[in-house]
């Protein structure tokens, strides 16, 4: 369980300390496997929580439990004070939670602009007509750096642009909470920095951002707080620098041999 006060607010950002996303004792079993267990988190608006952990640690399962794509076997999910435990994904979206998928999921038969327009048409404050939604989509595409590519089919986008489209669809929902599941995967180093700047910009606009990422430096750069999952449970949680120097984290990632104790 994190008390939001434990994190110093980032300079220049006014944050409302009451969490917009809160989970308590979140748990998911797959048969005998405990994929996620006892995860408590509280994420206020204007904050970024980085979630790291080795493969199979339960990071994507955690996102799926919050977004409603999986139902928890125990625990609760609250968004803006509303209980959304086990709610269907579209209800969670209507409550203001947007997500991206680790494996991008464009609607391949629709143009890039129409992909984003779908989100504008069905989000929490939906735009009623497709024409209006497309205008809104154009603005969002501009923001993520896909301006002028609205008319092409998603299959013609590069890996980086497909990730941008995934983000644009999430943003067109005008969410309060943004769940980013490995949104930087497959990007070239030169493409990562602009993406991080954009995510940080969104946080400064007041979004609560939960980001799952393998690139530790990226997480450290933009997260107010980092949570480490290991075998489905929270190994540790705190400010990035503190967490990343934690011996248990190094051990979970690289194995026992690489901890400072054993190297010296």
């Amino acid at each position, binding site marked *: 369980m994190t008390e939001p006060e434990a994190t110093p607010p980032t300079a220049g950002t006014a944050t409302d300390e009451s969490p917009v996303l809160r989970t308590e004792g979140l748990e998911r079993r797959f048969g005998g496997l405990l994929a996620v267990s006892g995860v408590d988190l509280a994420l206020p608006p204007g904050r970024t929580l980085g979630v790291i952990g080795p493969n199979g640690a339960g990071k994507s399962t955690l996102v799926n439990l919050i*977004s*409603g*794509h999986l139902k928890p076997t125990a625990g609760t999910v609250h968004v803006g004070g509303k209980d959304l435990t086990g709610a*269907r*994904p*579209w209800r969670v*979206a*209507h409550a203001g939670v*947007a*997500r991206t*998928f680790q494996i991008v*999921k*464009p*609607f*391949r*038969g*629709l*143009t890039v602009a*129409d992909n984003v*327009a*779908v*989100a504008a*048409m*069905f*989000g*929490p404050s*939906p735009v*009623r*007509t*497709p024409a209006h939604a497309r205008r809104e989509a154009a603005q969002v595409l501009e923001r993520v750096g896909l301006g002028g590519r609205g*008319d*092409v*089919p*998603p*299959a*013609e986008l590069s890996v980086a642009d497909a990730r941008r489209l995934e983000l644009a*669809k999430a943003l*067109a*929902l005008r969410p309060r909470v943004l769940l980013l599941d490995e949104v930087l995967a497959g990007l070239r180093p030169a493409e990562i920095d602009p993406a991080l700047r954009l995510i940080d910009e969104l946080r400064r606009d007041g979004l609560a951002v939960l980001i799952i990422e393998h690139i530790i430096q990226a997480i450290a750069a933009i997260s107010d707080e980092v949570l480490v999952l290991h075998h489905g449970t929270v190994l540790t949680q705190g400010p990035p620098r503190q967490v990343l120097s934690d011996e248990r984290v190094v051990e979970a990632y690289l194995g026992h041999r690489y901890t400072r104790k054993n190297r010296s």
Partner: protein
Amino acid sequence: METSTAAAGTGQGEKAPVPRGRRPAWLPWAVGAVAVLACLGLQSQLYSGQERTVTTVFMFVTLAVGWNLIGGFTGYACFGQVGFFGLGAYTTVVLMVHGDLSFWVAWPISAVVAAVFAAAIGLPLLRLKGHYFAVATLGVAEGLRELVTNVPRWTGGGAGITIPSTGAKAPTLWLGNDGFYLLFLGLGAVSALVAALISRGRTGYALRAINQDEDAAAALGINTTWAKTVAFGMSAALTGAAGSAYAFQQVTIYPERLFDVNITVLMVVMVVIGGSGTVSGPILGALGIAVVSEYLRQHFAQWHSFTLGVLIIVAVILLPQGLVNFVRDAVRMRDFSLLSNVRRYRL
């Protein structure tokens, strides 16, 4: 069933993308209106055998457009669609024979009954995907046929049932070849209109999104259960309305013919060949199959079915995404070669 749109992803632009030319918004409506007027004008030029054939084509336009709502737009290949056709037909017969209701009352009721039935079975069945959904719906249609066969007191059972359509006992007098031509033309036109409105509106976007990725669609706030149920219900309503009108046209109906799985197969073939998930594809598919089938019947009577089958196979190999989707892709990529189309779809 993989629908046309799903395959578009394999077209990793060998050519530079060309911005899509926006056609004027009124054009499809104008084409539709002209087509309906042309069909009205055509009527006086046909002798009665031809008129009946064209009437059947209109019916298949309705059926293909109806199937496309669930199988094409939404991507849930319903292999039991003929069940709604038979249900609409037998609802009309029961209402006209036992309830002494006018056809004009029984007709809309039959469409509603088919829609409500589809929504009811849709709630559990639309949780299934792919083959499972196809097989489950096939089972529902077979079940309906058995049900109708086994309540002869109401349906006449396997021996069939006849709607009184002449004389004082008839709730509605038979409409004649001219009347049914207009009835089915109207039904086909309304079906196309419904499909066009759905396609352009929010529902169309929701259905296409569901077709391509249901999890992603739900994550964007689409109530997938509701959208799928609406599509299934609308699809069944059009199919039920066609079945109802067909029953009245035939006067005497039998379960074997009204629940004939070949009718479903024809709907699927027409949609796939014309271009699933589009408005005009099923219409062109129905017209194309009907015209080719009729031509073959007249000129190669013995080899008719075989030749039609071969042509369908060739069409599906060359145009796996259907005619309309092929033309759209070809215009966009400025590549009309069938061979490169086949290559694009990696067949």
